[in-house]
């Protein structure tokens, strides 16, 4: 029972996290590609309750930052005017869930800009980029994992159920896929593509590649489950009653693989998010200025950024709750699967 409860808990955590990312347009105060050229590498702003004169304010407020004289990346707070944080402000237009055109943003300030997590080299809001970047990275992870599992399921089922030469062939191909040096192949692939790839094309290319790369492992797992379950009594019985291969697979064998697939999904999604980040970090992902978590981190390749602007590391931290969520989900799924198995095997020993 407790396994079920932890499972639900992780599901809620993930739901909330994904909800935030899906509603990026609403929660983020600014357009992720909008450049504020007066404020490059602006550090995260502090939220104040007490102003410079010691007065307490009912609403949290920020001071806008200005460049220290003679400097190009040192800022100081302009304590003359406090800018209170306002909620449900109207701002740049965005599309909620890709459909609804809206202008309302969760928070913001009038006559000033709030940079909760600072800005990057072009004065773009890191907080907004982080949220919008999550849309790209998480979608890449989810779709990539979906493709992988679908391919893995099909190939694993065919190999396990039909066996014989089909099994050998498919499993050798799977081994080949496991052995290929993917990163270098990807570099080569990119060299053959047309010079300029639009962000959308690049996005689907990444998904296709990371989706196609990882099918071998789930395929082997599925094959194992199919192999064992096709000899089970209820399958034999169904076959004895004249069930066709398709019916057997659909009704009796594939449902057996669901717990393996779900566990795999929970493990693969964060892995694939990480893969997207790696590719974007190396410049093979979605092109600038579209944000993705890997793109956000790629500025860390420069030594000067590495040592000067600590807030550029934040995109690396944002993955932590997501990864914890998915891994927690995976382990509770596994527990559930095992509890189920133990139940069944103990039943089996009774009979």
């Amino acid at each position, binding site marked *: 029972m407790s396994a079920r409860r932890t499972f639900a808990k992780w599901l809620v955590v993930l739901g909330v996290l994904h909800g935030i990312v899906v509603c990026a347009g609403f929660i983020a105060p600014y357009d992720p*590609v909008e*450049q504020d*050229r007066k404020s*490059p590498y602006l550090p995260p702003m502090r939220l104040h309750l007490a102003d410079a004169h010691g007065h307490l304010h009912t609403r949290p407020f920020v001071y806008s930052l200005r460049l220290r004289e003679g400097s*190009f*990346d040192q800022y100081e707070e302009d304590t003359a005017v406090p800018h209170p944080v306002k909620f449900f402000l109207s701002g740049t*237009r965005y*599309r909620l869930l890709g459909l609804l*055109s809206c202008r309302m943003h969760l928070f913001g300030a009038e006559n000033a800009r709030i940079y909760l997590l600072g800005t990057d*080299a*072009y*004065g773009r809001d890191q907080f907004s980029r982080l949220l919008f970047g999550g849309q790209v990275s998480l979608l890449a992870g989810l779709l990539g994992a979906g493709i992988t599992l679908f391919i893995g399921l099909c190939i694993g089922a065919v190999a396990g159920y039909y066996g014989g030469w089909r099994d050998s062939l498919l499993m050798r191909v799977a081994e080949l896929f496991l052995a290929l040096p993917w990163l270098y192949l990807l570099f080569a692939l990119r060299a053959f593509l047309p*010079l*300029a*790839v*639009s962000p959308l094309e690049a996005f689907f290319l990444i998904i296709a590649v990371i989706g196609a790369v990882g099918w071998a492992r789930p395929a082997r797992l599925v094959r194992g489950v199919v192999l064992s379950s096709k000899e089970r009594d209820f399958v034999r019985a169904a076959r004895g009653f004249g069930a066709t291969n398709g019916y057997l697979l659909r009704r009796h064998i594939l449902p057996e693989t669901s717990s393996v697939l779900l566990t795999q999904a929970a493990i693969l999604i964060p892995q694939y998010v990480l893969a997207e980040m790696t590719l974007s970090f190396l*410049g093979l992902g979605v*092109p*600038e*200025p579209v944000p993705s978590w890997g793109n956000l981190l790629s500025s860390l390749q*420069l*030594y*000067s*950024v590495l*040592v*000067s602007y600590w807030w550029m590391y934040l995109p690396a931290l944002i993955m932590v709750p997501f990864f914890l969520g998915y891994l927690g989900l995976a382990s509770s799924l596994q527990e559930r699967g095992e509890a189920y198995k133990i139940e069944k095997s103990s039943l089996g020993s009774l009979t």
Partner: protein
Amino acid sequence: MKNRRANFLCCQMLLCPLIALVVLLGHPAPGSPQQKGTKEEIFVLPGDAGRSGGRLVVSLRGEPKTLNPLIAADSRSREVIGVMQADLVHINRATQLTEPALAKSWKISSDGLAYTLVLRQGLKFSDGQPLDADDVLFTFRVYLDENVHAPQRDLLIVGGKPIAVRKVDSHTVVFQLAKTYGVGERLFDGLAILPRHLLEKPYQEGKLGQLGTLATAADQWTGLGPFRLKEYVAGQRLVLERNPYYWKSDAKGNRLPYVDELVFLFVPNADAQVLKFQSGETDTISQLGAENFSVLSKQQRGYTMLDAGPGLEYNFLFFNLNDAGEKTSPETLRKQKWFREVKFRQAVSAAVDREAIVRLVYQGRGSAIWGLVAPGNRRWGNEKLAHPARSLERARALLKEAGFSWSNGPNGESTLLDSDGKTVEFSILTSSSNADRAKMAALLQDDLKQLGMRVQVVPLEFRSLLDRVTQSKEYDACVMGIASFDADPNSDINVWLSNGGTHLWNPSQAQPATPWEAEIDRLIEEQMSARTFEQRKKLYDRAQEVLAENQPMIFLASPNILAGAKNSIGNFRPAVLEPYVLWNVERLYLKNGTENAAR
């Protein structure tokens, strides 16, 4: 970007001279070596005296390809060759004026066609062999030999004819030009005088090009520069030692150079260079980006960082204006219709936020530019050239005049359409290894978005970028930068002339493709043979105007020259010309009591 630095070759004559040399190498003679016969005419430099001894360690962005000035084309090789070789007349990097070098004086005949150079007496190569007029004759014979393919050859063809060199006596040489040459004696800068005793035999055998690899034995290579070869460790360092026969001394009569050893560490990239400098492994650093400069400035520990002011590098955007004939894809043809429209290029130029580039890319350590002559070049810039501020209205008006229109998308964003109703979208190439230019391209992308142009930035490895621009010509637009090696217009001649290899928007044309390119060609050619500075300046100013009107290159910004050195390094005075820090390497010294043996 013609290469002019020169150097020496490796010898194959062994035996007798070698034995003497080995003895010498074993005991590097301090001060002046023994002199026989004629008295040495040493070049005495004014200024503070330094301290002799010690080792200077500098970083080099990767291994040089060769030590041979006849084949060196990369900047790393040129930097190393620059400290191992010497020229007849040298451009002082600080004053940007010429000064005597191996030639103690020169005279130009009244018709401007004959240059008489008098060599210093009693000079010796770094292997102790004497220098005389025959070495100079040999050098220019080699440079001008078509079979050698020396990059210096182009520079020695004046008025379509190679310069003729004649010996008057053992220390006087006359150079006869077919046509007056505005560059004057600057022409000799960087043309290394080669050792005839080492190279004549390989030259006759046609093997010159194979000489001067880094693995050359130290006694097989020689030059007239302040340092000579000592040791090469593949992938790690090149060690040079002081040339005991070097022909310069300080005001107190101490023979230069001061340091005993000059070590070039091979460091693969800019960030690694910064780390090596920070940890004290190298003594100086140059070619710094503004961001790394500010990092180093913030945590100064025993070193000084210096902003030497505006340099000669210019960064620009250009469009593909090549006429590749039938090979051109229909898509490229469609785009070239926009690129060829001068109003389109002017509109792009008007939309560029140059101030933002200076601020965001160079952290204010740079200047916005509107022409090819960078602000570091004070003599040749055209002051009358307009510096229009950024104006999107003007850009839109220009586009409208050229028949472009806009359509509004659902989210309020407008898209630029050409006269056929097609969306204006193109890509800009940048070098993936140059963070500064990648940043410029990202800013351009956003600037042009405001005109409704859809621009994509494509970072490419520099070699494949160059290949696309100069060979296959498959690209839309590109952001690049060139650093002139000298303030004289001569150094950018291949950018100006339509048949030049770095006339990037349409390189190596057989005939000028447009009337304005033909006019630039004419102005530049005339300028080359004009005799007074005023005449040359007038013609060069006009060429700059034609370029600015037609905007084949949209100039963006020019960075300042940033450098740094340990506080223990004396005479550290970076110049805005290449080689920024090592130009006065013979005078760099380690101050009292400082020992820096770090490797």
